[in-house]
């Protein structure tokens, strides 16, 4: 039962991804062509409001529902990991027209072929784990 809340938040996430057409391949193409404000508005406003959340977490003005402190783990530093990993991710994002979140939402939309993309993504994560120590970070 303690997990049902995550399922419910996931439903909200799936609905908004779907209703705002974020799961549409065309919206991602349009974004990278700079032909619409739509995606920039979504990501930008999410970040701006997110900054307020982060501020409230840091100042301990908001705690978890159980009263614990909210600590947002810092991202790992490193130019190579972030830039090179980011570039590969971007190539895939623009080709698939979907980042990991929308991939799952598209299953709910009944898109069979997205399962191949998700399989590829899992394979990609596996190969990263396999060659992790040989990559620059």
């Amino acid at each position, binding site marked *: 039962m303690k997990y049902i809340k995550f399922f419910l938040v996931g439903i909200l996430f799936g*609905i908004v*991804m779907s209703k705002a057409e974020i799961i549409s391949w065309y919206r991602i193409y349009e974004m990278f062509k700079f032909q*619409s404000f739509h995606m920039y508005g979504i990501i930008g406003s999410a970040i701006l409001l997110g900054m307020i959340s982060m501020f409230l977490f840091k100042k301990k003005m908001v705690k978890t529902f159980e009263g614990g402190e909210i600590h947002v783990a810092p991202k790992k530093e490193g130019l190579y*990991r972030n*830039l090179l990993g980011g570039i590969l991710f971007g190539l*895939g994002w623009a080709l698939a027209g979907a980042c990991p979140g929308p991939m799952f939402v598209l*299953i709910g939309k009944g898109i069979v072929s997205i399962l191949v993309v998700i399989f*590829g993504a*899992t394979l990609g994560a596996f190969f*990263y784990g396999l060659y992790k120590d040989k990559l620059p970070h």
Partner: protein
Amino acid sequence: MNFILQPWEWYVAGPIISIVMFLLYYFGERFGVSSNLETFCSIGGAGKFVNYFKIDWKENLWNLLFIAGSIAGGFIASNYLTTTDAVAISPQTVQDLADIGIMNAGQTYLPDEIFSIDTMLTLKGFSILIIAGFLVGFGARWAGGCTSGHAIVGLSNLELPSLIAVIGFFIGGLVMTWFILPLIF
């Protein structure tokens, strides 16, 4: 109710995504979708080959429930909350896509040239789907996050690594969109 059935504007969607992030932290977890890919590897037994995947995946059960919910949300939205499958992309985008061989852009959510079952069953179509996924999965784990963990959470938290990663996302995305996609179709 009519408002719900229309496509949602950016100023509705952005704040809701921010609320999703807030709720995940409020419930004691975090917002990051691509780490589920590593959980899949662990569940699939990848820990036998690579120590990196030797984790107790049950600790990430909450995140699997989150993506299960997002699948359900996608189902609910497309079956009960959407009246048309058309996406109102800009006319210039439709024209640009026609020029590179992707027809009927915006009439549905996804191009048949990539996602139809017929395309999936060709060697080229299947390869495109696998490669696209592979790049997303490999890149996200190398960078340590995807759009949720880096772009939304990381930038909200003023993280320099996330700024670098998001610049990388855009370098890759622009190269794919402007230079590689025209060669594929």
